[in-house]
């Protein structure tokens, strides 16, 4: 998998976000076994030490658990996954509102814009 990394954010956090999204969207199921740290490193072409940090972070966030000798697994706690969706939505919302603030668009105008049908995308653009 070739992932385009943002230059200003630590790589481990970008991989964490990619896995969080897979958990929320159901591309990774509750209880599913995750690749080993080394395989994760190969999949994302990242350093194995970075891959280990990805799993540490996800474990701290209670999104995965480790069974000694067996590997890492996606959390089976559905409420945690629902809470994660909420966290990710809040992050998107915050970024979105900050972006509109920079453009000087008021909250009221923003709400009106959301209600209108979305304009067609003008070709694909890289996210940074």
């Amino acid at each position, binding site marked *: 998998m070739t992932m385009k990394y943002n230059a*200003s954010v630590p790589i481990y956090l970008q991989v964490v976000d990619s896995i969080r999204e897979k958990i929320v969207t159901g591309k990774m199921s509750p209880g599913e076994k995750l690749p080993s740290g080394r395989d994760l490193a190969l999949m994302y072409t990242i*350093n194995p030490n970075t891959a280990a940090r990805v799993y540490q972070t996800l474990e701290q966030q209670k999104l995965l658990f480790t069974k000694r000798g067996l590997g890492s697994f996606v959390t089976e706690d559905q409420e945690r996954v629902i809470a994660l969706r909420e966290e990710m939505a809040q992050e998107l919302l915050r970024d979105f509102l900050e972006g509109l603030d920079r453009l000087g668009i008021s909250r009221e105008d923003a709400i009106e814009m959301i209600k209108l049908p979305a304009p067609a995308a003008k070709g694909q653009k890289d996210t940074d």
Partner: protein
Amino acid sequence: MLESREITKVFGRKTAVDHISLKLEPGYIYAMLGPNGSGKTTWMKMAAGLIKPASGEMYYAGRPLDVNSRRDIAYMSTEPYFYNWMTAADVGKYYQDFFEDFSMEKYHRLLSDMELTGDLKTRSLSSGMMAKLKIAVTMARDARVIMLDEPLNGIDLLARDQIMKSIVEAVSPDRILLISSHLVEELETVADYAVFIKQSHLIEVRGLEELRASEGISVVDRYRRIYANAGGENE
């Protein structure tokens, strides 16, 4: 651990490496960065015991580097170093005779990962295939220190992916990996540390994730800051 203390090398009137002190620890990938001619190859050759420093000293595992250290240190140079009558299989045998830690089994696995076969004649290889063969034969050693000098030079995207994969696979808590490149962005995601060399001097050693976390910049950004105005910046 591999360490240089105030190491200097002079070729004629040119000082190729100027009082570089650098310590590399096992378990990490170091990217040695700098434009061509900045001293990366000369440092690596001294670390491999192939050339002698004019002053200063190399240490390996706490002792001055000697002929025995070579058993633990694998170095892939930029120069072609196979006889052109050799096949890829001959190259493996040649290495097996030289190095106790060479594994023929691993060599053949790496060749097949790289989509190469033993019957290929070295003289008929494209530059990308030659780059992959050199990596395979170097990585087939169970060396404690692996130094790759410009492994990504002149290769296509697919060969690059295969080489990066073999580098990631070689990481081990008891192994030092040092990769030189003037193609900074290639090593961006896989290296732990960047070693910036400029005009024969060591500028700094930086953790790549630390650089992003503390300054919000990538190694490419840092590289630009260090090298953009040649000779202008003192840090």
